[in-house]
């Protein structure tokens, strides 16, 4: 009996255990046992008669929206003009497009008046415009007008406040209610409310203003610009501080802030709360009460301790050592902090509700900044902690790209403003958001060249395409004889032998007419002769005949073999955004003379590839306009070819007339100019590929041939050119490289038969 009982109990026990083992898991899901979620989710009902429901509108109604009895489109547009004006301006209603049609996008600045006070910053803005390629001194040609009255600081308590602006502008005959005017402003309003009021009626003028509030911002019309300090450089600009990509970000702090705490008034609700997130470890949020004269009147219990802590940290050190930087509103919405954080690659965490972010029409700030919400300050630490390290890395790089592309100098800020307006004039020829937010940025990717991503050398990878598999050889013939020299015949043979060659263009830049077609060698690829105008820069004319992405630029004396051409082209296909070529030169900083030096000697480095024998993408290549230089044109313009259709290019568009004149005065500057420009765009060095020895000898012979006084002058002109270009760009864009690309088996101890380019090794 006892044993039996024991068995029975054991059986029970076992079955219960089994029950929980197998069934328990399911039971837990069952609402009855868990007591949680007594009711299932109530979804939107699946109506039994849902298929019988009527459509919200019948298709007739959808397709026939429009009633002929409505006012005609023209009348309606006219009616809109009276509604959408002043504070409701739109481009179509407040901007006179017809002014821009004849002469294109030209900007006129009012002549400066002697007695007119001009702040340093406004002086820089005007200088930027006058330096730009859009500047015109003739108001008749102008599409956009800029006042000479300093409107940057409209805080009437400020010393730079200009009085009676209204009266003055009404006196300008060109003012025209502000139509086609662009007004720059950094500070508006004053204590205590800091309203958006400028103290004068801007009428229909476009306002480019810092700290723009979304409510007063006229979308698609106004432009929000960043607040920049008065010592912001005119051109060039400092580099960003990110020099290292690391994952996870190896910075000491996660999130920092150091600044004033407003005890009263506008903006105080945010600034007054910032100290709450300070944890003393990876989040440093320091505030001081000291500002203004009478801060002690409003002083509270925290102030003394805060003021002491505040002094313990250095702002610059925090900027350098933090991953995220809080950029809260001040009295106004924007602050200097924004650009400082951007430069420091400290990802801005914006706490400035209602701020229309700088250039938001073009820039996708979601890729470079965390747009926080003033009301949710306390969630910021957990939100930024949750951002994935890879995203942090992308954010950091994007801050640097944006800083360098649009913000690092007054020139860039002003040009970005102008380009945004210009893009509105021809919406079908404007940059997509992709172009603005991808390297090299909107100022360097010109929609005049193309709006198709595949036409640019920068986007192949992101676009999932590759450069064309053929190239166009472009040979410049200058031999005075008027007949075909041996070198050029050999060159044509060598180049046409390349399997990648699509066509050969010969630019005949001699006084005498080119030989008849019978004299030219027979080639397998089309050979076209273009009558040039005897100028070096003809080479960079954007010939429409160039249909390939790659251009092989050659001088008639260049001595290349088919192997060299083939190999160089395969290398170029790997680096389509760079210049890939044979003879190279380099620049260096001459510490004694405090200027840039230039050398054509053999060195261990290179930064310039001569365009006498180089591959490049036609985007930077087809660079100079027909009227380049503007001096005597003896030969007729090329007639054998159709005029370039959309083939505008970086140089034509990017460089202003002033620089063209500068460079044109110096002979043989075009090689340097080309290299400087490409380096400014790519931030990368050019690429040198293997060349046979023989080639170098001929080069050195050439150099020998021009020694003496002529050679010396040429050399100093190179140097001048380099220095003037560096001055114009505001920095030295050229980047040095220490390498040369050779075929994989170059000079390896292996049978010549195994090598693809054996001819490159021949002595």
């Amino acid at each position, binding site marked *: 009996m006892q044993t039996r009982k024991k068995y029975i109990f054991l059986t029970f026990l076992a079955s219960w255990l089994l029950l929980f083992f197998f069934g328990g898991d399911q039971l837990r899901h069952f609402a009855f046992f868990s007591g949680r979620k007594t009711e299932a989710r109530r979804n*939107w009902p699946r109506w039994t008669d849902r298929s019988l429901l009527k459509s919200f509108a019948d298709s007739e109604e959808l397709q026939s929206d429009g009633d002929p009895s409505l006012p005609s489109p023209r009348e309606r547009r006219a009616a809109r003009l009276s509604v959408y004006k002043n504070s409701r301006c739109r481009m179509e209603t407040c901007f006179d497009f017809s002014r821009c049609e004849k002469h294109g996008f030209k900007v006129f600045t009012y002549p400066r008046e002697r007695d007119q006070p001009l702040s340093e910053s406004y002086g820089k803005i005007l200088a930027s415009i006058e330096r730009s390629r859009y500047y015109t001194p003739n108001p008749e040609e102008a599409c956009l007008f800029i006042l000479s009255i300093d409107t940057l600081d409209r805080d009437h308590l400020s010393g730079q406040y200009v009085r009676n602006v209204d009266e003055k502008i009404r006196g300008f005959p060109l003012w025209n209610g502000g139509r086609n005017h662009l007004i720059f402003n950094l500070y508006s309003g004053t204590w205590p409310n800091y309203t958006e009021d400028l103290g004068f009626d801007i009428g229909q003028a476009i306002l480019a203003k810092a700290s723009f509030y979304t409510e007063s911002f006229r979308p698609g019309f106004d432009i929000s610009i960043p607040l920049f300090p008065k010592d912001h450089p005119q051109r060039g600009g400092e580099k960003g501080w990110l020099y290292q990509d690391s994952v996870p970000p190896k910075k000491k702090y996660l999130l920092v802030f150091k600044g004033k705490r407003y005890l009263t008034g506008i903006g105080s609700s945010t600034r007054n709360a910032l100290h709450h997130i300070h944890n003393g470890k990876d989040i440093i949020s320091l505030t001081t009460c000291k500002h203004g004269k009478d801060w002690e009147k409003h002083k509270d219990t925290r102030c003394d301790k805060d003021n002491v802590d505040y002094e313990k940290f250095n702002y610059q050190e925090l900027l350098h050592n933090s991953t995220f930087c809080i950029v809260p509103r001040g009295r106004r919405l924007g602050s200097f902090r924004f650009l400082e954080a951007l430069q420091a690659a400290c990802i801005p965490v914006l706490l400035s509700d209602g701020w229309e972010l700088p250039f938001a029409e073009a820039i996708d700030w979601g890729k470079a900044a965390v747009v926080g919400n003033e009301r949710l300050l306390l969630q910021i630490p957990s939100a930024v902690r949750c951002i994935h390290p890879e995203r942090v890395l992308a954010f950091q790089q994007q801050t640097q790209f944006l800083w360098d592309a649009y913000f690092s100098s007054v020139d860039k800020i002003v040009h970005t403003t102008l380009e945004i307006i210009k893009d509105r004039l021809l919406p079908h020829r404007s940059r997509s958001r992709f172009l603005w937010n991808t390297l090299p940025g909107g100022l360097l990717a010109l929609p005049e060249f193309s709006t198709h991503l595949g036409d640019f050398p920068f986007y192949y990878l992101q676009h999932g395409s590759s450069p064309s598999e053929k190239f166009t050889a472009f040979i410049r013939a200058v031999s005075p004889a008027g007949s075909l020299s041996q070198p050029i015949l050999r060159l044509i043979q060598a180049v046409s032998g390349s399997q990648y060659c699509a066509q050969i263009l010969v630019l005949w830049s001699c006084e005498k007419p080119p030989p008849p077609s019978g004299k030219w060698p027979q080639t397998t690829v089309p050979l076209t002769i273009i009558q040039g105008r005897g100028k070096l820069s003809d080479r960079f004319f954007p010939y429409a005949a160039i249909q390939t992405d790659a251009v092989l630029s050659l001088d008639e004396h260049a001595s290349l073999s088919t192997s060299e051409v083939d190999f160089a082209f395969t290398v170029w296909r790997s680096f389509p955004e760079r210049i890939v070529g044979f003879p190279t030169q380099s620049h260096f900083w001459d510490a004694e003379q405090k200027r840039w030096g230039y050398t054509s000697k053999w060195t261990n480095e290179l930064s310039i590839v001569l365009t006498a024998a180089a591959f490049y993408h036609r985007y930077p290549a087809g660079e100079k306009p027909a009227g380049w230089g503007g001096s005597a044109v003896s030969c007729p313009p090329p007639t054998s070819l159709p005029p370039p259709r959309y083939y505008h290019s970086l140089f034509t568009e990017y460089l202003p007339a002033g620089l063209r004149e500068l460079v044109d005065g110096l002979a043989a500057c075009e090689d340097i100019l080309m290299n400087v420009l490409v380096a400014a765009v790519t931030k990368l060095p050019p690429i040198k590929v293997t060349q046979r020895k023989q080639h170098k000898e001929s080069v050195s012979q050439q150099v020998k041939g021009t020694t003496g006084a002529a050679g010396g002058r040429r050399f100093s002109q190179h140097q001048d050119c380099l220095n003037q270009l560096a001055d114009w760009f505001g920095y030295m864009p050229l980047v040095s490289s220490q390498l040369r690309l*050779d075929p994989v088996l170059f*000079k390896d101890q292996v049978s010549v038969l195994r090598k693809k380019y054996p001819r490159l090794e021949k002595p």
Partner: protein
Amino acid sequence: MCASAKYNTRGPALIPRMKTKHRIYYITLFSIVLLGLIATGMFQFWPHSIESSSDWTVEKRSVHDVPVVKLPADSPIPERGDLSCRMHTCFDVYRCGFNPKNKIKVYIYSLKKYVDEYGTSVSNTISREYNELLTAISDSEFYTDDVNRACLFVPSIDVLNQNALRIKETAQALAQLSRWDRGTNHLLFNMLPGGPPDYNTALDVPRDSPRRYFILSSQMALHPEYRSELEALQAENGESVLILDKCTNLSDGVPAVRKRCHKNQVFDYPQVLQESTFCVVLRGARLGQAVLSDVLQAGCVPVIIADSYILPFSEVLDWKRASVVIPEEKMPEMYSILQSVPQRQIEEMQRQARWFWEAYFRSMKAIALATLQIINDRIYPYAAISYEEWNDPPAVKWSSVSNPLFLPLIPPQSQGFTAIVLTYDRVESLFRVITEVSKVPSLSKLLVVWNNQNKNPPEESLWPKIRVPLKVVRTAENKLSNRFFPYDEIETEAVLAIDDDIIMLTSDELQFGYEVWREFPDRLVGYPGRLHLWDHEMNKWKYESEWTNEVSMVLTGAAFYHKYFNYLYTYKMPGDIKNWVDAHMNCEDIAMNFLVANVTGKSVIKVTPRKKFKCPECTAIDGLSLDQTHMVERSECINKFASVFGTMPLKVVEHRADPVLYKDDFPEKLKSFPNIGSL
């Protein structure tokens, strides 16, 4: 078997012998156990029906059965909305709060039928489209049925069609909603015009045949002024411009909405849209036009002529890539403007237009989800969907790469590099490698990864004395992937992975390799190069280590790369590649080559001439490579990885990097890197 039989025979006898009290007790217990087991069994067999039981909870009702609400004539009318609303002024973010998923919660009010005082209904209870839209929201991950947890509220009052609304009564009905509060955090959908009309699937396959017309206008109720302008264009440019209008002489029974006419010619709509490159979308009484959706669907590039029109979802969609916007004033120039668009771009715009339709306009569901996602992006901007995700069609997403190290930075030379030597027990050779590598000027730290768990590394005093810090990391398991772990000890960006038997590289060669890496910091820069080939006979990839004219991989037995790739290798390697490598104790270098090429889209850089990677006392890479089975295994790796990546990311190039003056006729002592290529 036997025991149970015994039990059975004795069982019946058992019960009567027990006391009644016990008997009841046992019977109860037994039945409970039995019930429990039955219940368990049921759950075991029906687990799926429980999870997918949404049908159980969804009410099966007719729309006509919804509760009726009478609106008294004097019920409050909500104040007029604030036209200057912005997210930060009118939206109550506190309702949304922080949540780890970064998803807003959306509540849908239950459906009611509103009638006025006289019992006449205020509107059509709900339209088919609005029902679809609410169903889509309800099925999405945004939905919540808890009004208290919701951050966004969607009324079930259908306001899609403004023409069919009784404005005042609808406003009264809205004001009655429990959380209305002047409309804060409420989302209303208003569609007319622009909803997706329901054609059959005639257009579902995009056509590739050449398009007959350059410009097409298909709208019916155009203002005569527009029509005359279009006709002027047609007169100028002839056949390539087609202007359609309503058909006047259709026989009965043919739906007018499906036909368009030009003079006496009849065209099928919307099929005719596929015949044109560009399709005009002109404003009517309203700015937006239903034809836009048809045009996108047909893969025709819309030409938008409607000043001040905010295109749908333009907050996130880049319409410049899918449409041409022309100011109304410039209508006469339309032809020449469109002529100036490059052909390749037109093709891309057509694809893009079609993709927009497929992703965001195709159904009420697509529209609803895109709308909610945009609001979600505004509320959680740090988790927002990127421009590329919104705008790139799947084909582009698939074929394009976005380099994680996209900024062209040339890292400062002063940073130096960290050498990582993976070793097991070849101490002597390891020490020689350490001594050799320590001669490289830019070395900043040396890390030895001691992969032998059975043996301790040699005592500290025995290690070579070198000028840079030397750290030894002991691993828990002998795995090849330990070589690519992003150790905290690595403080530089550049990492030199080097095997413990690579003693033949000169200091000049290593220093030069580092300089080359600085110029290409997002690539693998290595010494021995390898190639993958397509084997036409076997129809698969083959590994090649012979003297070839091309390279597509470098061995990580001696290679420089960015530390970021260690992070990627350890945490982001797709599929089971990492485990495969550790299990086979091979191909970690091929895996790394695949990973880097896949994420950057760029080729490797092989530096300096080929060397005999052999040393007398050890089996070096080359020695091993010659082994036939080794080659087969390596080929297998390539095929395996290519299938995991779904593509062959490796890029073949014909170049290698040498110093500028390599083998040039120039005094050796003036060269920066004279000792290159010595055997």
